[in-house]
């Protein structure tokens, strides 16, 4: 079992480059933690880019970053110097 008193889990932040998204939904569908959902916005490709539904669930597995064909999303560690 993970001792969360001793081991600090990274906090993640997910960045979406909205105008690049072509709406394939691979990130939304295959995120193992259901962090993402389709947004209501429509971008210049005429699709709804993803948005973060619940960032606290992100474990920084990196799958969204890796599976995006369009370099439209990436996750990275939050810089938590002033608390997260």
């Amino acid at each position, binding site marked *: 079992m993970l001792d969360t008193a001793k081991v600090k889990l990274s906090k993640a932040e997910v*960045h979406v480059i909205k105008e690049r998204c072509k709406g*394939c939904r*691979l990130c939304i569908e*295959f995120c193992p933690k259901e962090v993402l959902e389709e947004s209501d916005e429509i971008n210049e*490709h005429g699709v709804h880019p993803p948005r973060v539904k619940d960032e606290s669930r992100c474990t920084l597995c990196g799958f969204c970053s*890796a*599976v*995006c064909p369009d*370099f*439209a999303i990436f996750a990275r560690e939050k810089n938590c110097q002033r608390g997260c």
Partner: protein
Amino acid sequence: MMEELPHPYEKFLRMDRIPHIWCEGCGNGIILNCFARALSELNIDLNKLVVVSGIGCIGRVSGYINTDSFHTTHGRPIAFATGVKLANPELKVVVISGDGDLFAIGGNHFIHAARRNMDIQVICANNFIYGMTGGQSGPTTPLDSLTTTTPYGNIEEAFNLVHLAAACGAVYVARWTTFHTRWLTESIKKALQKEGFSFIEVVSQCPEIFGRYNKMETAIKMMQWFKETSTLQHLSDPAEAEIRPHNIMVGEFVDIEKPSYGRLLRELAARVAEKK
């Protein structure tokens, strides 16, 4: 509110040509992504890398990557890459091309480069179809598939590319799907650091054409097929590694050491110089 950060891999891309022409959910974009990640993690010298591609949707990759690159005639990237590597062995030469380009029209060049153990890395985007020209069958189109030139179902057996590469003498042979992003990146890294002829087959989705014709019309459906039917078969017999609708065998199938053609040529030159 997040500030607009650039994507960490933008330095590997010709940003003046993004967005690329590939369809939504196209496996080609994932392959480029995994390749960029491998370059990033290895900290490869981008001034000494040459990416060569042939004709097809994946062939456009050489125009998007921010390195020296060349887009050859159909089927010929491996032969071109051979010339590059022999002329300047300091360059790292990678061929990224499609199933038809590498194994139909380009088949002869593949088997000989593998036989010679040319020190180049070949990544094949195998999407089972000729997408760029509108969806004709190719040498990896699965039996019974529908394409524009097999409107009644394909009656040709598909190549087992893993077996072919292994039989021809490749020193590293792996197959992954675009779902196996982490494995694929690791294989690319391995191949880039390994002397000799490496071959990585990437089973890749073409949802717009292959998918639509064969009841998997979205990237999600095709990726679900990859996820659900792939089985990990490290170092199993390449001859048995065929792709079946219910079983896509993935893994590393060959990982051996053999001197590359370039090394043997340098040894030859040294012998010749000694004799004089």
